[in-house]
């Protein structure tokens, strides 16, 4: 068992100023996941009559993208390519102090404690992150062969879980990695080519309007991404965006 000290961001609601509050976590098993550690702390808070720490989570398998906190200054914590729910306490050692904060970005207002509003990401998708293929209009699935190399590359982009770590890690609070992953996924496919340029234009404009920052090549996003999505997709998106603006 490990004995840890936690400094956790507590904030009642969006208008509250918020502060770091220190908690003692005396019985942490190295086999616990990071979120299970928070569960145990919360159980003890409830018994004491205090409000438990609010945090988003759901599948706890690293795929739904719900969870995400800044752990000692790093999005999702110290382990590479790992979401907070898949991070285990054996990554820490007895006596450690851990600071836990919500995603911090202009476009992600805090709702409560570690819970933030990421709906701006949904609005970026709604502005063009799709192929217009109404139900029932599809040709046979094998009608258009797609080379395996393309399909694999598309998958790499499509693996994004929409957790927002890239935004949280970026000094500019940019959503370039998120947006470019979707643009690249769809624009690299023959099915997506008809809407290629309007798509990139609309998604980039929405991204800007939502208050995300711009890319200045820190590449912190790639380092924080639990699915290891490459910044190459940002270059892809920029190329398509330029072509789209020239085309008008």
């Amino acid at each position, binding site marked *: 068992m490990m004995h840890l000290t936690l400094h956790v961001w507590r904030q009642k609601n969006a208008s509250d100023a918020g502060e770091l509050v220190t908690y003692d976590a005396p019985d942490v098993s190295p086999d616990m*996941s990071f979120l299970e550690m928070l569960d145990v702390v919360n159980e003890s808070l*409830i*018994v004491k009559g205090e409000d438990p720490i609010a945090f988003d989570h*759901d*599948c706890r398998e690293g795929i*739904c993208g*719900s969870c995400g906190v800044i752990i000692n200054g790093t999005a999702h914590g110290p382990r590479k390519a790992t979401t907070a729910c*898949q991070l285990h306490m054996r990554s820490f050692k007895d006596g450690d102090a851990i600071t836990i904060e919500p995603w911090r970005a202009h476009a992600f207002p805090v709702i409560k404690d570690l819970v933030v509003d990421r709906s701006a990401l949904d609005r970026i*998708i709604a502005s063009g992150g799709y192929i217009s293929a109404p139900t029932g209009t599809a040709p046979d*699935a094998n009608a258009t062969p797609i080379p395996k190399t393309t399909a694999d590359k598309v998958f790499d982009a499509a693996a994004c879980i929409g957790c927002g770590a890239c935004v949280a890690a970026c000094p500019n609070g940019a959503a370039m990695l998120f947006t470019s992953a979707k643009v690249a996924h769809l624009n690299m496919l023959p099915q997506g080519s008809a809407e290629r340029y309007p798509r990139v234009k609309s998604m980039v404009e929405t991204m800007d309007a939502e208050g995300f920052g711009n890319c200045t090549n820190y590449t912190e996003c790639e380092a924080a991404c639990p699915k290891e999505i490459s910044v190459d997709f940002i270059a892809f998106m920029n190329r398509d965006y330029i072509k789209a603006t020239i085309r008008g």
Partner: protein
Amino acid sequence: MDLDAGIPSGSIEQKWDNHRFDMKLVNPANKRKFSVIIVGSGLAGASAASSMAELGYKVRCFCIQDSPRRAHSIAAQGGINAAKNYRNDGDSIYRLFYDTVKGGDYRSREANVYRLAQVSVNIIDQCVAQGVPFAREYGGMLDNRSFGGAQVSRTFYARGQTGQQLLLGAYSSLSRQIGLGNVEMSPRQEMLDLVVVDGKARGIITRNLVTGEIESHVADAVVLATGGYGNVFYLSTNAKGSNVTAIWRAYKRGAAMANPCFTQIHPTCIPVSGEHQSKLTLMSESLRNDGRIWVPKKAEDTRAPGQIPEDERDYYLERRYPSFGNLVPRDVASRASKAVCDEGRGVGPGKLGVYLDFADSIDRLGRDMIEQRYSNLFDMYERITDENPYERPMRIFPAVHYTMGGLWVDYNLMSSIKGLFVIGEANFSDHGANRLGASALMQGLADGYFVLPYTIGNYLANHEQDNLNTDHADVKQVEVEATDRVSRLFGVNGRRTVDSFHKELGKTMWDYCGMARNKEGLAHALEKIPEIREAFWKDVKITGASADLNQSLEKAGRVADFLEFGELMCRDALVREESCGGHFREEYQTDEGEALRNDDQFAHVAAWEYAGEEREPVRHEESLDFEHVHLTQRSYK
């Protein structure tokens, strides 16, 4: 209670076509006058919401997550079945239909399953058109793999993340409709109750999970796509938020609950590591293709696996089932591991685990090959357990994974409440007593893209519109009841946390209504569950405020419903005096320990009707007729 499934006439191949022609259509200009509420945004909910919106209906979609993209469909790994016959290996719609009915141990409706197999081919086309990146071969054509319970390769997949890619496909369609203003999406909203007016489902009551506001919403029809109830066991592979509340509330408003005891246990999950365990993680059962399952021959053997010599190991699946070996179906493999652990031969912490050993395959195929096939799974295992499966056998144990039971629906996917439709895992319809691998994704999308949009149109075409609004007395009444319930939960102000009750319920369900069930145990659970429920309502503690984001309160409402639902599950398991699929009653097995069905008495759907707070629910039967599939005893010897 009327349990007429409304199976269309004609040959099984013609039923769906005939029905589609016979159904009334809504004039395109009138569609926008009809409003539909869809609860849930997983594969079923998102595909239904986008397809309905494309048709022109006014759609409102609700989900509890912060975004519709996070529904638990996203976690499905393996794949999606479709009768494309791209392998030219003899697959057909009829074969997929046959395999599904047989795999379900003959407890599903033939006509529904046939339709599912028919539309399965359209699903793949639709998903590819949306840009879902299925695995492909070098020639650019779609790849397939084989999956348990089938002798053909009909499973389409996207690495180990098929559910994610299909859900993101449906979510993108849904997003397009949201962007166009055709769907009003309400995330972070939880359905607390169903509004029934004059015998028809007309709306829902929701709690805004951010502000705590309780709101009423009315529509011309309501669709529940709220998933399964595996979390009644506390520990399951379901997401933490998955719950029974929406379908349980509908049940208490008059919708029949069908076969609640049919639950599926998946054999290859990572074992529990301690009291803190909050959920279980599944690993694709493809691992059983190359791993050998064993435990020590003698009980309480504490040696490390490498120290146990070959002749002191029991490869129990290979011993008991020489022809199928480690590849027996899910339920058989799960029960066999329970049996060896019951004998005290389990391994790892708590002795609830068996070894899945790759040493022989690594010797035979080389480490590179094993890495190519399973590296993502091995990495996941190592991340969670801190053990290297290339060097030390994995430890696995069965876990609750999927629930075949759910709200009863007719051929149109309408429940026993008119105007209430139920799709995806939330209904009971297609998997009988056991679901085949890669069929859950197929059913969710079949219901949402290709079945519901037609059948709900037929209902709406016959539905007389009125000016019902949220001021109606019946709506207000349900809203008051939902609000009172929240206050009552807060009013208890006891000493124990919600999770402590949930864990207690889960353990009872797992011990007595889990992998193996018997009369005594179920009777015991039926005494025990009301006790836990009573203790909950006397001693639960919820801190914080109700007009706020309050995750303890959310959990409390869901656990309160699980505490009622668990009892119905046990009741259903007790009355079904046979073993079939995921329902194994120890009293009913063959001499060889296999599930023994009783087709004379139990070839039916058990549909439960709520009879009031203090009264026992009423069990109804819908008999199942098998005209095409020949009833046989499964054998994997």
